[in-house]
């Protein structure tokens, strides 16, 4: 479908009951448009949307029984918390909360909302707003929950706490959810399955492990935080190991995943998988050791991001303790070690 200059093309995925599906993508990738199409605010030019087995492609948003959470929660400012939560119920004439929803009272208690009932949304904190928005949607018993970057506008600390809370509520409710974000941590915490979206196209779908450790192409690799992407050429393959020739005459051994001999590849290594030693170990199961020099060390919270020159650029993450114990200051000579199993090969076009 097209929306002005933007087009959503070829997006297909399925989701099972109780699963959380995260769509990861940068700004402008089409995440919100996709979500709002599923909710029914835009109609796709072709393709089908099936919810619980029924075709919902052309049904009105109010008929789809979908819960929606916006980034700023969109709580009705002219209504109290109680009226907000009741909104969906009074529409469907299922009576008020008091009417006979013991699970709902339970939920309200668990979310700590009882004391907020008469407050106006403008007076609530970010966390309280999220809980109210969740309750408001859950009360209508949706079959599917859609989240449009609900945590993006929050500071890192609040985001972490609310993310965990969201995970707990979703798990307890058992409702399938599609969660859209540009933040990898949220994807790692929440996703049962995930996909990467770019410019209106789904580039890769799978479990978090599959996407984060085996990115399909260079762009996905960069986006999911595989920061070492080294060009190389396959020299030979035997015993399930591919020998890769790297710049500056170095060689690398990686687990073969179907690369053709003499083909060009990209070797993808997550910085967390690069270990540093002052001296090369005498005997080790690790296949790859690259001598090199430390160029810089940058603090990233509890870890340090070490930039190395091993004949090719390499990034490693080490703990602060290791940094201090080993004295990994710029200029130091070290050996970077990477297990063959930690290297993911992508064919170069």
């Amino acid at each position, binding site marked *: 479908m097209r929306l002005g200059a933007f087009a959503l093309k070829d997006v297909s995925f399925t989701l099972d009951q109780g699963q959380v599906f995260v769509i990861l993508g940068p700004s402008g990738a089409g995440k919100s448009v996709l979500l709002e199409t599923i909710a029914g605010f835009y109609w796709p030019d072709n393709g089908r949307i099936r919810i619980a087995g029924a075709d919902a492609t052309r049904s009105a948003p*109010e008929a789809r029984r979908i819960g929606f959470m916006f980034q700023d929660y*969109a709580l009705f*400012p*002219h209504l109290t918390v109680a009226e907000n939560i009741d*909104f969906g119920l009074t*529409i469907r004439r299922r009576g008020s909360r008091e009417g006979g929803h013991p699970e709902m009272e339970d939920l309200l208690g668990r979310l700590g909302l009882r004391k907020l009932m008469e407050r106006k949304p403008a007076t609530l904190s970010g966390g309280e707003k999220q809980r109210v928005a969740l309750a408001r949607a859950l009360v*209508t018993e949706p079959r599917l929950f859609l989240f449009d970057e609900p945590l993006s506008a929050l500071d890192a600390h609040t985001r972490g706490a609310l993310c965990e809370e969201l995970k707990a509520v979703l798990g307890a409710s058992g409702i399938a959810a599609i969660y859209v974000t540009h933040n990898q941590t949220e994807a790692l915490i929440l996703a049962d399955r995930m996909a990467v979206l770019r410019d209106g196209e789904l580039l890769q779908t799978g479990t978090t492990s599959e996407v984060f450790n085996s990115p399909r192409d260079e762009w996905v690799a960069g986006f999911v935080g595989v920061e070492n992407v080294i060009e190389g050429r396959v020299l030979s393959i035997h015993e399930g190991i591919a020998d890769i020739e790297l710049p500056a005459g170095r060689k690398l051994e990686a687990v073969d995943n179907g690369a053709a001999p003499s083909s060009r590849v990209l070797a993808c290594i997550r910085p967390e998988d690069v270990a540093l030693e002052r001296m090369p170990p005498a005997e080790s199961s690790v296949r790859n050791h690259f001598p090199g020099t430390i160029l810089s060390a940058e603090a990233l919270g509890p870890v340090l991001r070490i930039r190395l020159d091993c004949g090719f650029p390499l990034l490693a993450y080490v703990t602060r303790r290791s940094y201090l114990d080993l004295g990994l200051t710029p200029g130091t000579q070290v050996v970077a070690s990477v297990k063959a199993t930690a290297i993911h090969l992508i064919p170069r076009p």
Partner: protein
Amino acid sequence: MRARTFGQSRGLVFVFSLFGGLLLVFILLPLFQMYARQTPAALIRIAAVKDVRSAIWLSLEAAGLTALIAGMLGVPLAYLLAHTSFAAKGLIEAVVDLPLTIPHTVVGIALLFVFGRTGIIGAPVNALTGFQFWGTLGGIVIAMLFVSVPYTVNAARVGFEAVDVRFEKVARTLGAGPWTVFLKVTLPLASRSIVTGLMLTYARSISEFGAVIVLSYYPMTAPVKIYDLFLQFGLGDSSAMAVLFLTVALALFILLRYLAYGGMVSRGPRQ
């Protein structure tokens, strides 16, 4: 910070204040003089005249009906203008603003072609039902409506545009159909702007003279009666009625503002 900037441009502020002051005096002096020259005796005498009182009441009543109709017809149009986009939208918005640019007596003349004795609506309606738009409250309301409806439409449109579409989207996902969303979400959130528009419409209607006098000289609204008194008896009686009418209108507006915004302030923060 502000003091410093002003300090540096003292000359400019002085000259501009002079001009501004001139303007303020220009506005206030006539009103002040008019009030100052009245005697309580003259005011009581004029208020005792039945025609004077019924003219004032007619103005208030007709303007009220006008605001009502303006709301019913103008608010839906404003909603469409705020929510849809189509090629002719700019044209339609210009048409809505047209009444603001037409001279008032010209408005009256034009309305006669539709609602007058030989008008394309006025004639058949008169033939079928005996009702006539000229020389009646109906004609007054028609004239007032024509000149004042742009205020309602524009204010309502701005109000609707200011309602974040996300509220409406969320309401839809919660199960509300388009009508419910409009009544329970959009309208309440835009209500402040709409009320402002209606009050402006009311104010504009009360003060209308040219269009009203062409369509319905009788029954006389307050501005028409004041003019009539002026022509017949000069400044004395007409200014007494003018002061009476102005005071009633101002008091009414203060009351309306309090009722409208006072209520809203207690209902919640505006967005």
